């Protein structure tokens, strides 16, 4: 009789393996000082951005909902997680009933849940709008959220309002971001290739056809939107504890555009593209700080838009088009 590993355990192993490998590699590079802290930071930030971008890809790439308010949900997750974690550290300090890491996990989850709840609330009325109008409504929501963040100190002084929120413990280390990224990839991949994911793709392709085969279009739109925003919330929580400082201007509508550009550059409805584009985007953005001579540093934002325009002119369907990395493909669906 052969020993059979139960399926669940096997799946968990499959997920743990890339996590361990990636974390080990990064930690090794970090400890041997092959990479200086600057580049480690960039890699960590890339992972966080990738989680958020995967969320937007679920919303826009797979479900076809034009959302320009992604940074708002990112911000809600960031503020929620930071508030909880700060409260936790403040109340219990060193000797607490929970290890700080567990509390961090909890506040990340809370950030995701807060963003998802809000997405549900926002989505219920606005998802009846179509295409560009939905984009404007979510853009408006993004601006409103930023205004609320700016004025947040008038109802919750800990949030800091326009002066920014300080005193957030630094919790986000390499294992956390890698774990977040691996989890996001897994959830996104499995969601996309599930019945739910196919319903979402069907809605993107043709709403009327989707409804004739029995898909409750509105309900699935809310599902897709909520799921994508939950990603943003978790990414926001990671971000908050990576930089330990939150400012409303980090979550204004221009930041939503950044994520949108990543998703479109990588290719809509393409997980591999989003991953590559997230890393590429952050590396380009931050890497140019090092590569450009200091007196030309302002040219950073001149070069990036030009590259963006040229890429769009040459490959309007995104860098990856419809090709996916093998580990992101579904078993049947391609």
């Amino acid at each position: 009789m052969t020993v059979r590993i139960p399926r669940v355990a096997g799946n968990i192993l499959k997920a743990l393996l890339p996590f361990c490998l990636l974390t080990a590699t990064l930690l090794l590079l970090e400890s041997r000082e092959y990479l200086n802290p600057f580049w480690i930071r960039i890699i960590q930030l890339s992972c966080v951005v990738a989680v958020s971008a995967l969320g937007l890809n679920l919303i826009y790439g797979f479900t076809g909902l034009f959302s320009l308010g992604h940074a708002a949900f990112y911000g809600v997750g960031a503020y929620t997680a930071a508030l909880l974690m700060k409260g936790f550290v403040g109340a219990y300090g060193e000797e607490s009933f929970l290890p700080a890491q567990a509390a961090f996990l909890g506040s990340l989850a809370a950030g995701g849940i807060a963003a998802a709840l809000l997405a549900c609330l926002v989505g219920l009325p606005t998802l009846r709008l179509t295409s560009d109008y939905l984009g404007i409504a979510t853009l408006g929501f993004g601006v409103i959220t930023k205004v609320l963040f700016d004025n947040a100190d008038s109802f919750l002084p800990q949030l800091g309002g326009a002066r920014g929120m300080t005193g957030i413990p630094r919790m986000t280390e390499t294992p956390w971001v890698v774990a977040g990224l691996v989890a996001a990839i897994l959830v996104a991949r499995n969601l996309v290739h599930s019945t739910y994911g196919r319903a979402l793709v069907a809605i993107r392709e043709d709403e009327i056809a989707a409804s004739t085969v029995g898909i409750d279009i509105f309900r699935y739109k809310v599902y897709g939107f909520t799921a994508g925003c939950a990603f943003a919330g978790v990414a926001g929580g990671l971000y908050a504890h990576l930089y330990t400082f939150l400012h409303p201007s980090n979550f204004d509508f221009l930041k939503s555009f950044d994520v949108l550009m990543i998703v479109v550059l990588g290719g809509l409805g393409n997980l591999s593209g989003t991953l590559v584009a997230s890393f590429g985007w952050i590396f380009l953005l931050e890497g140019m700080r090092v590569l450009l001579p200091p007196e030309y540093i302002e040219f950073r934002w001149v070069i990036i838009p030009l590259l963006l325009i040229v890429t769009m002119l040459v490959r309007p369907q995104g860098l990856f088009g419809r090709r996916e990395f093998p580990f992101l493909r579904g078993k049947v669906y391609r």
Partner: protein
Amino acid sequence: MYALIALGYTMVYGIVRLINFAHGDVFMVGAFLALYAIERLGLPLPAVFVCAAAGCAALAVAIERLAYRPLRSAPKIAALITAIGVSLFLEYFTALHQVFGPNFYAFPRPFDVVSREFGGVTVTNIQGIIFLATLATLGGLQYVVYHTKVGRAMRAVSHDPVTAGLMGVNVNAVISFTFGLGAALAGVGGVLYGIAYPQINTFMGVMPGLKAFTAAVLGGIGSIPGAVLGALIMGQSETMTSAYLSSTYRDGIAFLILIAVLLVKPTGILGTARVEKV
């Protein structure tokens, strides 16, 4: 104020269904051109307006030709991302020290501010000029769009570009003309902005651009009177919020109104619903 920018948005969207995010930055370029025309060349005010409008029109036609036209048959989002790219490029390129520079610049007042009272309402001559200029452009646009040959061609292209092309309309020329006209209005808006708020920098186009676009959507995008109406509502709501609530909530309230209107009437106040055909 917003009305002039909103008109440009609504015209471009009406014809090519593209949210032209670079429009707010064309507006900024207009203000800077005017600044140069006044300070370096010492032109009189009417010539300044012509100069800014012409410069902006040329810029917009160039943008359309280089960045948007190759993407007209591509997915809409590609053009949208390109528009964002153009917008960022204009902002940061002009902020370089070699171009305009990143600082705030004082815009010279070409005439003195005079306030008058009309039945308890104080109106400065600048506000009067802006109001008259907006009315004049609104009238002019209505005339161009509904009573000239180009206007008829514009409406035809907006309705169905392929059929319009088959009927002998030069679609590319019409689209270029629309971009140019919209940008000329933005240029005039830029000069007026410079006169009204005499401080300009290269990022000044972002918020007015966004709000003008919101105004266009609020009034019903693609509709010319709608853009003006939407702009009036936006402007009023901002002023009222600043006056009665707190200026920090200003942007939020304006967008709250937008969302409320969109939920009740998704195509905007004066917009017409498009019939979905299967």
